[in-house]
């Protein structure tokens, strides 16, 4: 019996009339009615309309929502609830149980798919599978928040959420003094195919990190090339936000590009690209895996070559924010820390919520494009909550290694009144600054 059948069977059983308590039961002349020894009223749960609970748990992938037994361990683990969002799987289950149409409710969109709830859930209610599956149904029904719809539109039309021309993908290379090989123009075999990603390619602060990466690769003598205008958004966030068709289109395009060149390693800038290429792309590639590494993994394996080149000290207190899709989702906690610890005089301090228990920046699962919705339904942004923690532990620099995070946290530094107190830097920028 697979999971879906199990859920169905449980549900059928609870609907069976033999499970509804009778007002009075006399068995062989003895009154065995339950009311006299119970302090509660008969449960009213069957009075509610379970249409939307059924609609959700009938979606392949979303069955586990029905397994929740309301223990509420997920609630303090949920970053959205922590930020005042009145959220978490237990609360969603309860709302469904009492008849809420979640397909027209903000609960459908607030989850950032950070996976912290699944870590503590004894029933394995899996929001990472539930949310994309349920959202795909909502999107097909036209129930998409407008800010998210705009992003889908841009990605579908231009291959990136900014709605920018593909030709501008390489514009950042103009500001860097090292050669960046663009593989479609120069397709000779290459050691590293670097998947730059949308935010590194198009966002101003991302450009800084992309240029830093090119310089660090150059310092280390890494032979690298990029896809240039042929690269498309990795699609992971679009998949998690409920557009599986768009994800497939993007993934198939990128897989086709990867197939055109000979390379040893596929290095990605972002944890979402890492997650997509590592776990999702093979499903569309006949099971064929890619030699993919997040840049922190690639560089941490080259510490012997890297460390002697880190000659300028960085005498500041630095804390590191674990990206959900590098850490919890893919188990990589050490590579970024090894890089930071290799920097001379850098004082690495940890926040309370780190590694497996790391807090979410709010950008995952489509959250990057749902700031308006989050503002309407949360007391604060997740990024603001996180920045306050970084300041609290005494950090002067918040180091990140996800392209979504620099702009999110920089905004949060300003909006929490911490301008000038905390600097947000991509790890690659710190490494670049410390090289001669």
């Amino acid at each position, binding site marked *: 019996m697979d999971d879906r059948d199990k859920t169905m069977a449980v549900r059928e059983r609870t609907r069976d009339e033999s499970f509804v308590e009778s007002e009075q039961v006399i068995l062989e002349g003895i009154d065995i009615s339950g009311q006299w020894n119970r302090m509660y009223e008969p449960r009213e749960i069957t009075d509610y309309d379970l249409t939307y609970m059924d609609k959700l748990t009938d979606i392949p992938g979303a069955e586990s929502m029905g397994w929740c037994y309301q223990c509420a361990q997920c609630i303090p683990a949920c970053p959205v609830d922590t930020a005042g969002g009145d959220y978490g799987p237990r609360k969603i289950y309860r709302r469904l149980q009492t008849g809420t149409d979640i397909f027209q409710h903000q609960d459908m969109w607030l989850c950032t798919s950070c996976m912290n709830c699944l870590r503590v859930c004894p029933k394995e209610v899996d929001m990472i599978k539930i949310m994309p599956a349920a959202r795909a149904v909502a999107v097909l029904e*036209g129930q998409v928040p407008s800010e998210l719809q705009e992003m889908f539109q841009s990605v579908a039309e231009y291959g990136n959420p900014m709605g920018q021309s593909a*030709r501008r993908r390489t514009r950042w290379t103009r500001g860097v003094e090292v050669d960046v090989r663009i593989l479609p123009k120069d397709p000779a075999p290459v050691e590293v195919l670097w998947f730059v990603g949308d935010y590194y390619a198009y966002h101003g602060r991302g450009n800084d990190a992309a240029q830093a990466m090119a310089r660090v690769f150059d310092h280390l003598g890494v032979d690298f090339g990029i896809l240039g205008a042929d690269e498309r958004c990795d699609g992971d966030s679009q998949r998690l936000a409920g*557009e599986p068709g768009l994800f497939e289109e993007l993934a198939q395009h990128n897989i086709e590009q990867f197939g055109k060149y000979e390379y040893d390693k596929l290095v990605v800038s972002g944890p979402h690209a890492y997650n997509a290429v590592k776990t999702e792309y093979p499903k569309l590639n006949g099971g064929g895996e890619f030699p993919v590494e997040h840049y922190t993994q690639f560089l941490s394996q080259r510490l012997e070559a890297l460390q002697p080149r880190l000659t300028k000290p960085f005498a500041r207190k630095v804390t590191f924010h674990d990206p959900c899709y590098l850490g919890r989702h893919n188990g990589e906690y050490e590579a970024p820390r090894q890089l930071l610890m290799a920097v001379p005089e850098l004082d690495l301090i940890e926040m309370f919520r780190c590694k497996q228990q790391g807090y979410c920046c709010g950008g995952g699962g489509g959250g990057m494009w749902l700031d308006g919705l989050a503002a309407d339904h949360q007391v604060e942004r997740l990024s603001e909550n996180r920045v306050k923690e970084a300041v609290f532990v005494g950090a002067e620099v918040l180091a990140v290694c996800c392209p979504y995070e620099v702009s999110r946290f920089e905004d949060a530094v300003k909006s929490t009144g911490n301008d000038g107190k905390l600097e947000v830097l991509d790890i690659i920028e710190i490494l670049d600054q410390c090289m001669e």
Partner: protein
Amino acid sequence: MNIIVLMKRVPDLVEDLEVDDTGKALDSEYLKLTLNEFDDHALEEALLIKESGGGEVTVVALDDEGVDKMLFTALAKGADRALKITGAGEVDGNLQLARMFAQVIGEQPHDLILTGVQAADDRDGQLAPTVAALLEMPCVEVVNGVTPGEGRLTLHKEYAGGVLAEFEVDLPAILGIQAARQTPRYAPVSKVRQVQEATTLETVADTSGAAPSEFEVVVMTPPETGEGAQMLTGVEELLEILETKGVIG
């Protein structure tokens, strides 16, 4: 109600537009065509009217490379039929285009015709009124809200300076849509694919005999760059300027 939406593809302004070597036309090497955004609003308004009162929405466009995806997307959003006008060749200007559309509309059942009020490649807003003149039906331009009624429509039209007017128009009529009542909807990729696999686009040959315009492009140039804006560094600087100009005392 039979609603026809006239759609056209225009150069995508996300790409840098460059003038080609002749100095008379856009360089087509990097030119990407996309649906005219006002036509997207016209389609959205048509779908909203259909959803509120029933009817059938037919989208019509000239055949070109890439038009199929645009039409399948319109079907995925909720249009019922898509018509491609074939054999039109190079079309030059809205007069010629209007003649082609008018001929096709004449052959189809129609109560209401919607199109974008203007397009990035014309900005003259002449398509709707020209089609209306050819078909001898009423036309309202710059419409940003339609309420369907019995045999007639109530419309909101926008004038310069934020002035709004309410119109009533008898059907059949043609409207130049400025903005739909809501943001044009999104068609999920899987739905577009589904439609693409299950539907064949209808084609209709252009027999209008519409001739290209007799105007000739003499020269095409990008706008001249001005001196640029002066970036101010602080409020003091702003106050100083306002004082110098006598705006504040």
